[in-house]
């Protein structure tokens, strides 16, 4: 099967600093790929470079086998939906209208119907007419997730979709993305919560200084060695009744 998205040998700079140093990524339909790494490891840069949003020195990115640079905006949007990390909205549009921005390809009444259904899915159907700037950060994040789901794209890329969300909303977000994968979509999501990543992702890509430190199933990717080397944590993935969690402390600090 053709991979939904591949990035090979990406090298890129922000200013003079090298933020990507040969990073690579591949995700197949039906798969949830978690991208983790310390701050500054290049997670957002890898996504942006792979979507053609930032210039690279070397590297090839393909969406459904086609080079990203050769796609026009319509073709690209048909292949991928993107939820940026930046959640600042310019205007106080009703939530329903914001969610409907995910489907500019549909006539307005259909787009609104899709938007309404997605708002329901993310649990904020009652806020459909509320202005997005009159919402809490968490409510707004859900509306933007609904906007992402409204794209109906076969690849969904979400940059830190759970940042600032309460635990229930974090789990709901990952559940919804998993449901999209179960329905055949490829999902790429950056996360800081390693336990959440281990529980929700089929595979985990660990980035460190713009390079891939691991790209395997969660248990292997988040081994004690990787935790120590990349995250400077002394600890391990631990199986609990609720799933995997990371139990760790900062390297070199004494146990409590």
């Amino acid at each position, binding site marked *: 099967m053709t991979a939904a998205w591949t990035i090979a040998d990406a090298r890129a700079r922000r200013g003079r600093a090298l933020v990507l140093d040969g990073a690579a990524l591949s995700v197949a339909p039906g798969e949830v790929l978690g991208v983790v790494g310390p701050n500054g490891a290049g997670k957002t840069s890898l996504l942006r470079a792979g979507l053609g949003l930032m210039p690279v020195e070397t590297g090839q990115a393909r969406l459904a086998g086609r080079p990203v640079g050769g796609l026009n*905006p319509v073709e690209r949007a048909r292949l991928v*939906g*993107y939820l940026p990390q930046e959640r600042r909205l310019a205007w106080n*549009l009703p939530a329903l209208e*914001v969610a409907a*921005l995910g489907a500019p390809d549909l006539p307005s009444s259909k787009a609104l119907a899709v938007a309404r259904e997605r708002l329901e899915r993310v649990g904020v159907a009652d806020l459909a007419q509320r*202005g997005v700037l009159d919402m809490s950060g968490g409510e707004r994040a859900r509306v933007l997730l609904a906007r992402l789901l409204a794209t109906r794209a076969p690849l969904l890329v979400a940059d830190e979709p759970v940042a600032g969300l309460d635990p229930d909303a974090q789990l709901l977000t990952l559940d919804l993305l998993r449901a999209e994968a179960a329905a055949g979509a490829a999902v790429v999501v950056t996360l800081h919560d390693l336990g959440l990543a281990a529980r929700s992702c089929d595979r985990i890509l660990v980035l460190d200084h713009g390079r891939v430190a691991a790209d395997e199933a969660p248990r292997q990717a988040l081994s004690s060695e990787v935790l120590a080397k990349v995250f400077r944590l002394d600890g391990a993935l631990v199986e609990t009744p609720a799933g995997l969690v990371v139990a760790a402390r900062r390297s070199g600090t004494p146990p409590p």
Partner: protein
Amino acid sequence: MSSRRLELCLLLALIATAAVAVSLGESALSAVQYRQALTDLASPPAEVLWTIRLPRVLMAALVGAGLGLAGATMQGLLRNPLAEPGVLGVSATAGLGAALAIAGGLAAFPGAIELAALAGALAAGAVVVGLAARFREPEVLILFGVALSAFAGALTALVFNLSPSPVAIAEVLAWLMGSVENRDFTDILRAAGPMAVGAGLCLYAAQGLRMLTLGEEAAQMSGLPMARLRVAAVAGSALLAGASVAAAGVIGFVGLAAPHLVRAAVRDDPGRLLRPSALAGAVLLVAADLAARLIPTEQELKLGVVTALFGAPVFALLAWRAARSWRS
């Protein structure tokens, strides 16, 4: 309120304001004279109403609509409620073009000042369109607009500085203060062409302005041809602002205030904001011009002076209310 209903209300308000503006003026007419104006088109009262006041009112409506539409487009594109048509520097370069034409003694040729102003606007417009195609960050356009405005302002001051004739300086100053006095239907037609093109470009960009609510990158990934829509928005606003300055001089605050008056009624939607802003701008400028004519002063007030005099305090009030809502 639905968009259509809002636009209908504004259109009725415009027609009512325009009717009042045609009826009232410096020379008061009697009931008999009004009847004469309506029945006998060759009579002196008909002359006052239809060849002096009507073109003036139409020009005010046209320029007001252009400024309102350009302002709403700029606010949507730059995602900034404080943006106005002049933010790109186009108004300043249009003013410079007019100043050069007047100082160069071209005022005697009909349409020469307007053409020079439009040329100034188009030159600056070409620069900002090039920038908009290259950079997607709104800050780039704002900063270059500031630089362009300052440079054009300096060159206009240089025209004053080097002009040997105080008469020419006075003429340039009067022109820059903005007015729709003594306009005829030829002037209106001359302005309408570039304005229609500009309006078409801005309305074409409407869906892109909505998408920009999400931010630059989400918009770019949305499937809309954002690069093309961004260029259309900049080129359209530049044409509208340039043609407005060419037709009526520099008139502030209408482009800034008109979108604010209707924003709440369209639930903040930057795309649906465009047409109501044009209508609101037309109402505002027709009313402002009526005020300029009716306020009894020795010399008739300049339109740009009136809009700034009334507009600035109203704007401060809007800012005050907005600031209080941010705090809550």
